[in-house]
């Protein structure tokens, strides 16, 4: 507590001093209201080098050349301040789990804005549209595109498009018309505004904002389909927003009289041009990037740079051609992910991922802080109760109506219908954010007399959605889910049956051809495999995709060998007695060698499916679905069956489960580590066991890894496994007991199983992956499962027929 307060005070003091300094130093240039010329700072900074011209009376040893460095210094300072704010916000985790980070950042922005305003009696720093659209937004969207789960995105593309296009148009129209109607009715008093301006305002306030959505949904774990719907919608609606904005802007300039059918048709055509054109630009740049990374083998050190530059260029190019810049950069990210991950060196891929996150996170922080600061500026505030309250009401209500209406229509064609709770979350999660603010700030105040009113309203809307809706989202979701889901714990048999049902349903659906692999999708895959991969991927990358699991296995083996050698060196099995030491080494080894391969695997699994079961799953109803994974097909070629099997254990996931989380601040590697480690350790255990028994002359218990998966269908597995059962049975039991995390039982040795205990126990994590196929429920319930299992040795006799 004390630490936090200190930090706070320090930060504030630091900042106040700086501000005073800055303000005194810049009294020369008076800022122009809330819309200064382009640049982070509102103050005049054209005096770089001005100090040189003055006459000097003698040699000055040290001079204070503020104006010399003013602009970059302020920029750097602001970035630092934003970073420190984020740090302050994240100090207390319990706070951030209740109030989303974005809300807290806005709060800090208010405070900072207040300080600045207090220091200088005017708001010198605001979020200008130029800075926002050119320097802050692109990296956020590039990050979104690059980490987008492609398979999920494209399979829900239809629904996403419906929401993005029709939903946004609906929102824009209803809000605009609603406000206009109320204005006509006199609810807003006397303001100088017209129908077209209302429609324009409606169109810019209607769009769901990607930055806000990510920021809030990060805390709320929703299932992946829901997430991708809202997220995808927020990204794709830019196409509509841009068109509507420009069209209405043009209409306002033209004046109401000039609008005729031709203009309207032109407007509609421009939608298609803007949207598809933007996407096309993005795809072209994705091709460029992929081709480029094919040739960068010799300059691997700067490979990552290309991604960012070309991504940014795609954004600017689309902007230049007046197409949808957001769509462009999104599709650039989406299309190039697979190829660059395959082409680039692993270190480069890691670099790209981390740097992408740094930029995106940083931008987001700055955006929210500045959204807060920009508010503390009396110059822009115009209060019109009617306008503001009605806007809030309309966007809220019409969003709900729109979503429910569209979902009702969509559910007729969807095979997995969207449930009520999903719809509620989707409606409630339609947050507006900085994009709306940026657009409204771009309005020309000569044409829009009520611009300040609109700006004020937009700010209030943004605050309302981000803060209020953000804070209440999580409780709402929890409450709804708790209401809906059965809280009773299921017995093992029920869980098994649940799983059976799901598989059955999938099978029936496949047989009946209801959900099929789309003809088009198959064609696309063939095309892609044959042509695109040939064109865009390095030959070595193409080959290595198949052998990635081989490498994994070889690393396994290498590690096991060296581990055992190490032990041998120190004398028979002495090393196993030293539990902790063995473990630490093991972990280190594991991390070191595995991290090399992890990005590869992760990267390779990026597109179609990647994240294994996350250890915390929100959806109470357990379900498993096995979609076909492209990676699975490739895995067939892998020689080592064990690796295949291990990794396949990753691939069990439920259809409705929250299995993928797009996160602004976490990369997937972190999440999987525990699980992968667990699986890795199990492999190690089994290998060591086999090695040990071979060494001690016991008949080898292996055959675990010789259950060779030939080149064909994985389902042959269950059949050929009879011989090993009896031998491995005791092993299996002990294995299960371990996962209780019962360190206490590490005492007694059980003959040749002793080594297992030594480090098996340390796995500690009640391994979701281990029992995961069973039922990926929260750990609590798994812990309760374990006692069932532990009863085994005693009760087994009564079952033997």
């Amino acid at each position, binding site marked *: 507590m004390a630490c936090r307060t200190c930090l706070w005070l320090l930060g504030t003091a630091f900042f106040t001093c700086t501000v005073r300094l800055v303000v005194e130093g810049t009294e020369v240039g008076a800022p122009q209201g809330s819309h200064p010329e382009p640049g982070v700072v509102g103050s005049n900074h054209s005096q770089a080098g001005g100090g040189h011209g003055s006459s000097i009376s003698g040699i000055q040893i040290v001079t204070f050349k503020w104006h010399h460095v003013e602009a970059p210094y302020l920029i750097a300072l602001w970035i630092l301040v934003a970073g420190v704010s984020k740090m302050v916000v994240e100090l207390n985790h319990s706070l951030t789990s209740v109030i989303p980070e974005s809300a807290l950042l806005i709060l800090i922005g208010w405070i900072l804005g207040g300080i600045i305003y207090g220091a200088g009696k005017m708001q010198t720093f605001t979020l200008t549209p130029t800075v926002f659209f050119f320097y802050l937004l692109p990296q956020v969207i590039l990050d979104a595109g690059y980490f987008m789960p492609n398979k999920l995105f494209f399979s829900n593309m239809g629904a996403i498009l419906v929401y993005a296009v029709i939903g946004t148009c609906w929102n824009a129209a209803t809000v605009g018309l609603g406000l206009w109607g109320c204005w006509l009715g006199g609810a807003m008093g006397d303001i100088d505004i017209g129908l077209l301006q209302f429609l324009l305002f409606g169109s810019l306030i209607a769009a769901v904002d990607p930055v806000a959505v990510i920021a809030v949904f990060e805390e709320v774990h929703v299932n992946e389909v829901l997430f991708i719907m809202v997220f995808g919608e927020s990204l794709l609606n830019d196409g509509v927003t841009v068109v509507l904005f420009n069209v209405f802007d043009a209409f306002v300039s033209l004046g109401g009289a000039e609008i005729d059918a031709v203009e309207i048709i032109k407007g509609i055509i421009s939608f298609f041009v803007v949207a598809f054109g933007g996407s096309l630009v993005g795809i072209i740049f994705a091709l460029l990037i992929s081709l480029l990374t094919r040739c960068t083998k010799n300059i691997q050190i700067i490979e990552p740079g290309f991604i960012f530059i070309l991504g940014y260029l795609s954004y600017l190019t689309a902007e230049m051609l007046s197409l949808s810049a957001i769509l462009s950069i999104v599709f650039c990210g989406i299309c190039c992910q697979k190829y660059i991950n395959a082409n680039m060196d692993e270190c480069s891929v890691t670099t790209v991922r981390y740097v992408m996150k740094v930029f995106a996170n940083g931008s987001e922080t700055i955006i929210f802080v500045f959204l807060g600061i920009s508010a503390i500026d009396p110059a822009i505030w115009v209060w019109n109760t009617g306008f503001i309250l009605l806007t809030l009401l309309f966007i809220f209500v019409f969003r709900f109506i729109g979503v429910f209406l569209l979902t009702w229509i969509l559910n007729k064609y969807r*095979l997995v219908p969207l449930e009520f709770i999903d719809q509620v979350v989707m409606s409630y999660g339609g947050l507006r954010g900085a994009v709306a603010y940026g657009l409204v700030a771009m309005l020309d105040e000569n044409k829009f007399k009520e611009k300040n009113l609109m700006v004020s309203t937009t700010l209030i809307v943004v605050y309302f959605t981000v803060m209020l809706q953000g804070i209440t989202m999580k409780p709402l979701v929890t409450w709804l889910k708790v209401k809906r889901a*059965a809280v*009773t714990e299921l*017995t*093992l*048999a*029920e869980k*098994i*049956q649940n*799983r*059976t*049902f799901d*598989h*059955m349903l999938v*099978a*029936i*659906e*496949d*047989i*009946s*051809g*209801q*959900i*099929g*692999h*789309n*003809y088009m999708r*198959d064609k696309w895959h063939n095309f892609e495999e044959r042509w695109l991969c040939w064109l865009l991927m390095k030959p070595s990358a193409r080959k290595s995709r198949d052998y990635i699991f081989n490498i994994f296995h070889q690393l396994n083996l290498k590690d096991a060998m060296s581990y055992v050698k190490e032990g041998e060196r120190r004398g028979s099995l002495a090393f196993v007695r030293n539990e902790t030491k063995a473990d630490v080494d093991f972990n280190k080894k594991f991390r070191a060698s595995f991290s090399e391969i992890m990005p590869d695997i992760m990267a390779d699994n990026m597109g179609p499916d990647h994240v294994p079961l996350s250890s915390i799953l929100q959806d109470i109803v357990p379900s498993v679905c*096995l*979609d*076909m994974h492209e990676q*699975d097909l490739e895995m067939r070629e892998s020689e080592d*069956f064990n690796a295949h*099997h*291990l990794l396949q*254990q990753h691939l069990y996931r439920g259809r409705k489960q929250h299995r993928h989380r797009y996160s602004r601040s976490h990369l997937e590697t972190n999440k999987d580590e525990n699980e992968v480690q667990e699986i890795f350790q*199990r492999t190690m255990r089994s290998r060591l066991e086999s090695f040990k028994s071979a060494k001690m002359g016991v008949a080898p218990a292996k*055959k*675990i890894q010789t259950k060779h998966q030939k080149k064909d269908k994985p*389902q042959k597995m*269950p059949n050929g496994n009879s011989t*090993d*059962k009896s031998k*491995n049975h005791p*092993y*299996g*039991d002990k*294995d*299960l007991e371990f996962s209780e995390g019962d360190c206490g039982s590490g005492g007694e040795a059980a003959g040749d199983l002793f080594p297992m205990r030594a480090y098996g126990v340390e796995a500690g994590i009640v391994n979701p992956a*281990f029992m995961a*196929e*069973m039922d990926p429920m929260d750990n609590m319930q798994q812990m309760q499962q374990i006692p*069932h*299992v532990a*009863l*085994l040795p005693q009760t*087994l006799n*009564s*079952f033997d*027929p």
Partner: protein
Amino acid sequence: MGASQSARTEHEFQDLADRTGFSLEQIGNLNKRFRQLSKNEQTLSRQDLASISALDNNPLRAQIINAFFDKRNLRQNEVGTVQVIGFEEFLMVMSHFRPAAMHITEEEREKLRREKLRFVFNMHDTDSDGTITLEEYRRAVEELLSKAGTIGQETAKAIADAAMLEVASTTRGKMEPDEFYEGITFENFLQILKTLDIETRMHVRFLNMDTATMRCGK
């Protein structure tokens, strides 16, 4: 197809619709799918079903395919399996997965439940003796959970045993050490799965429209 043939098919479909409860459009779609799977023959064999590539990754593949050829599911009150099935049998099996209608009475709902659960039961009870023995259950769980290797198999076995134990204790209460629990009967099965919302969960939405997905390859 000549007009007369389509008229006859219409009439057949109507008859099938009455018996299975599908709508005419759904039957039409399923018929197309049937013909696609059976390569335009009158009957479907196991190979035809086995060749659906989408099923490859499904652990229940073998069981499901068997279920189609299991006489018990064909509402014929017989046991045993058949080698090939016609469209009618295909529909029969599929009809187990129809969603429950909106407004049905309590007893109809119960009937529906029993039907669906019977299907699942039959799937597990491979020797058709009316009980799911430990062996059968083990095998079922194993298939279900193990697309993996021996390790997975051990787990599966352990889990099956534990589940069996649970069922035994719920249905038979405390057992003497030398008592032997033969297996799960259908009534037990119903009992333990009472809480699961079978009639709403176990269904597939059969589309009325012939969407493009119907053209999907195998």
